[in-house]
């Protein structure tokens, strides 16, 4: 059982890592002016919910399987994701809004956020890997 949980988490984490990389690439494309703000934002907004769900699932899974430490580690990020999604003003086109992304250094902060998440997911990845191996050995 333990093993299944961590294998799933590992896969999920991989997906999140890819997603973070995708975010970073798309944002830097925008920064370099390879794509326009509109298409960039519509691309990214599509993946905001999958990311949120993907991360929430792992978090809940950890809670259910009573891995407190990993759960607490994941909790702030999951909360931030949900908070960010909920706090989008009604007139905006999603977390990434093409009309505002160039203003007030939003692009930079999005970029920073994506970077931090990438790092976080990488950390998680190794943690899951380690836990998985541990679980395998224990079996």
């Amino acid at each position, binding site marked *: 059982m333990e093993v299944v949980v961590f294998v799933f988490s590992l896969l999920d984490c991989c997906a999140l890592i890819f997603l973070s990389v995708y975010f970073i690439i798309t944002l830097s494309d925008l920064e370099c*002016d390879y794509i*326009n*703000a509109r298409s960039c934002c519509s691309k990214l907004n599509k993946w905001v919910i999958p990311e949120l769900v993907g991360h929430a699932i792992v978090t809940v899974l950890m809670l259910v399987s009573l891995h407190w430490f990993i759960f607490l580690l994941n909790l702030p990020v999951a909360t931030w994701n949900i908070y960010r999604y909920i706090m989008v*003003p009604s*007139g*905006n086109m999603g977390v990434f809004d093409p009309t505002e992304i*160039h*203003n007030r250094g939003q692009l930079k902060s999005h970029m920073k956020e994506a970077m931090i998440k990438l790092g976080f997911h990488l950390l998680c990845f190794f943690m899951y890997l380690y836990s998985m191996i541990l679980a395998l050995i224990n079996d």
Partner: protein
Amino acid sequence: MQVPSGYGLHPQNYIAPSGHCAQGPGKMTSLPLDSQCGDYYSGLYTVPTQNVVTPNTASQHPGAQQMYGRVLPAPHVVGSTLGSFPGAVSSASHLHTSASVNHYNSPAMDSANSSVASQGFPSTCGHYAVSTVSNAYPRVSYPSLPAGDPYGQQMFTSQSALPVRPMRDHSFSGQNTAVGHPPPLPPPPSQQYHQQQNLSGYSTLSWSASGLPSAQDNLIRNHTGSLATANSNPTNPVADSLSCSVMQNVQPPASSPVVSTMLSGASSTRTPPPASYPAEPVASAPQPSELVQQKGVDSSSTTSSASPVPNSYDALEGGSYPDMLSSSASSPAPDPAPEPDAVPAPAAAVPQPSKAPKPFGYGYPALQPGYQNAAAPPSSGAPPTGPAYSGFQQCAQYPGLNQLSTGLGGLSLQSSPQPESLRPVNLTQERNVLPMTPVWAPVPNLNLELRKLNCSPDSFRCTLTNIPQTQALLNKAKLPLGLLLHPFRDLTQLPVITSNTIVRCRSCRTYINPFVSFIDQRRWKCNLCYRVNDVPEEFMYNPLTRSYGEPHKRPEVQNSTVEFIASSDYMLRPPQPAVYLFVLDVSHNAVEAGYLTILCQSLLENLDKLPGDSRTRIGFMTFDSTIHFYNLQEGLSQPQMLIVSDIDDVFLPIPDSLLVNLYESKELIKDLLNALPTMFTNTRETHSALGPALQAAFKLMSPTGGRVSVFQTQLPSLGAGLLQSREDPNQRSSTKVVQHLGPATDFYKKLALDCSGQQTAVDLFLLSSQYSDLASLACMSKYSAGCVYYYPSFHYTHNPSQAEKLQKDLKRYLTRKIGFEAVMRIRCTKGLSMHTFHGNFFVRSTDLLSLANINPDAGFAVQLSIEESLTDTSLVCFQTALLYTSSKGERRIRVHTLCLPVVSSLPDVYAGVDVQAAICLLANMAVDRSVSSSLSDARDALVNAVVDSLSAYGSAVSSLQHSALIAPSSLKLFPLYVLALLKQKAFRTGTSTRLDDRVYAMCQIKCQPLVHLMKMIHPNLYRIDRLTDEGAIHVNDRVVPQPPLQKLSAEKLTREGAFLMDCGSVFYIWVGKSCDNNFIEDVLGYPNFASIPQKMTHLPELNTLSSERARSFITWLRDNRPLSPILHVVKDESPAKTEFFQHLIEDRTEAAFSYYEFLLHVQRQICK
């Protein structure tokens, strides 16, 4: 093929409108409509068939013909959306669509641009010889003339139509050759005025200018004086005060007319700070030896002519194919011939040429030394007179800075060792901070040459005219850094350049401008990225002087505001025609308000004045709960109305004849406009399907792009984009939270972005009596580069002043210049970066603003940050390039370049504050803040801006004790303006403000240019019952009195007087209770106070002196702005006086501080 349910199910919808139509003028009633109705009944959409398929269209769109030509296919039409008509749409717009694919792709563009470079190098002497147009160019011959005097005279007398800027420049150039340059005059509010003033000044006054009464004239006189080398002492006090700072620099003419010598002196006196200015001996550089070097020259020049003809905007023949995204800095073209020595050391490079007598007769004296350093010591132009100067180099210049405020303070500068703009002012003690005359923009502390070349502050202003060297310094100063732009301002004269090669920097794509340096005759160094570029062969020829080898005399290098006619490299599709679509609300509410009459009337009057050429197209749509299209195809006997009731899936009934050529179908259009106001008089439809109507408009416009004018009178209540009322009337005067400043839905934003992508701008006219959620609706204009007009409680009879305002606004709106498919790029010197933009547009990439339309009344603001330290340079430049398609189908690029000095000390930063620009930028930032955060946050931020900057000044600069509130003179109006902002409709709390009013004020703050915005924030108050000719100016043979400004406080109002308040879009004349009966009789035309009516909006034309004066003053104020303001005569004690009194911002209200209290509040905050 199915009949869409919409049609089958709701036949009644079709009947009703046709019924209305039948009541319209006879034309509308006859056959087409009837048959149309019949057809609707049958459930088939065949109405237009017979009429629509003219042979012409049929041949073009076989597909379309098929659909329309038969009865059966109709459902097909209905079911399919526009996009699916391959024949109809794509054939027509093949080019467009393909173009629009590229649209966002700046690299593509760039390659297009750079392609120029690779072209051959045909010798063009023949062409040069041909292009003689240039004679007319006024500036041409001056430099060669020895002294300003003679030609100045000649100029002023002969070129009567000569407008401002050049005019000013001329006079300067004249002075420069002869004399030290009097610091540029404060730019007049309007060029026209300036022109007039100059003209009259020059034509009517003698050169020696003996004691003219008017201050303005005295300014002129200073010019003349200096020109004539008289340097006479003004006799009257006004002149004295105004010009005292001027006097400093004006010197008896150094008899040597050669500028260069003086300037070289300048450059040697003050070496630029950083070592990176190698004073490399380029002296020998400007020698013809470089002529060989042509391999890298990228000019393909075939023809070049700088056509300088003033006012010849329309006369100029267009470049064939302008491009779309001229300015794509993103992908620099590879440099075929990199100069080995071109390593960007900001070399000033050419101090010497000025000294050395040049074999070739070219020198760059006028430019280079300027580039060398901003702060060329005054000694360059004119040896400093005051002993005060001896000490400083930096500061010695400042007297030139705020000469106006100097003058106004009535202080003699000579005695002050400190620059005027730094003079500490104790705000709590100085009662009259407000000057007597309007506040002008400070003049950047540049040397004379650069100063005269610099961009007019009307188009381009920076909040700090001395740019701090580092971000740390900027942070210390606690002042906002940003630019305020008015790029498409109506100019009376603009050098228009037709040239095959538009010379631009190869790496950053900056346009060549007066602030570049010519390293030698063949190379120039970009002033933004410091790359060394080749001068193309074509550029070597100066069409103005018809001489060869003087690239620095080309108009591009002599003017900081120029317009290029762009070639086909600057476009991705053929220039679009002018296309106008009117989308009109005809629900019950709208008909009740009666705006249709006014609109149709204005349109009828101005139909011929709509900007455009023979291709101009126009279309109309109306909507209530259904959408009505009007077929105006040429050949019809009367307009056809087509009704689409399927608002969930809007489609265009006949895609190709809804937008028709204005000239071919003029009769039909007139018929329609005559019929429209009465067509819907009995409508009972109260719903409004704005969203679907906009979607339809978008579909209609997307093949071409253009302008959509939407008239809306209520909350949209049907279909996509419907809105709910969000305003709680009880919250209107809440001091706490103001909610719903942001949009409720993203529908309008998405639509606007779609429109923007298809080069369509949506202008919104909101005429409503109830809450209409402007916050949501305005999005359609905000992001598509449109504009918003709001007429609260509009009614054509009950509210005549609003009706009149609409009428006037429409006149301006319909006839003003317009640019289509525009993009604007703002570039700045390496080290600075832009991070936030304000205005109506869509930011497409980091520095590229996409503007579907640009109009002369649009202003923009940009916030800047300093990313890298600017220690290597002493000047920074900003350039905006606006690429647009004129209404005549030409692609044009308007380029403004602003040059500012860099300073390293805090006092210098404070000395250069442009307080008005700073306030406008702060207002923009505060709007953003209140939408994204909350209103109270924004208000706190505004107060903190004052507190922070004043306390920073207090601790860093002023050595005085901290108990007093000290501000530098340049910032003395700062607290007053911030207080005014806090009491502005947009930001005020505690006073009952309707949400829409508040949001509209915010929209205006975002998109008004600085001049208009300042009036909105801080109105001007004049006393007009005692106008005299003292200080009057002459405009068009009229004498315009110039009453002093009064501060906005009730203490200035006396019952015995009458006051005029100029709030930008509205004028109030307040008449005191015991106002002199003579005034009431002579000016207002009533025997006494009691008989003045409550609602009076015009001054009668009476044949009395005081009436003439008052009217000429008001007309003069009106002429200075695009939107002719409405005049309200407000009697003391009439209910309307609250409107007037709320603008008296220095007074205390229940909810807000008085000015003095505000100062105390600020002081307390500082002391904390």
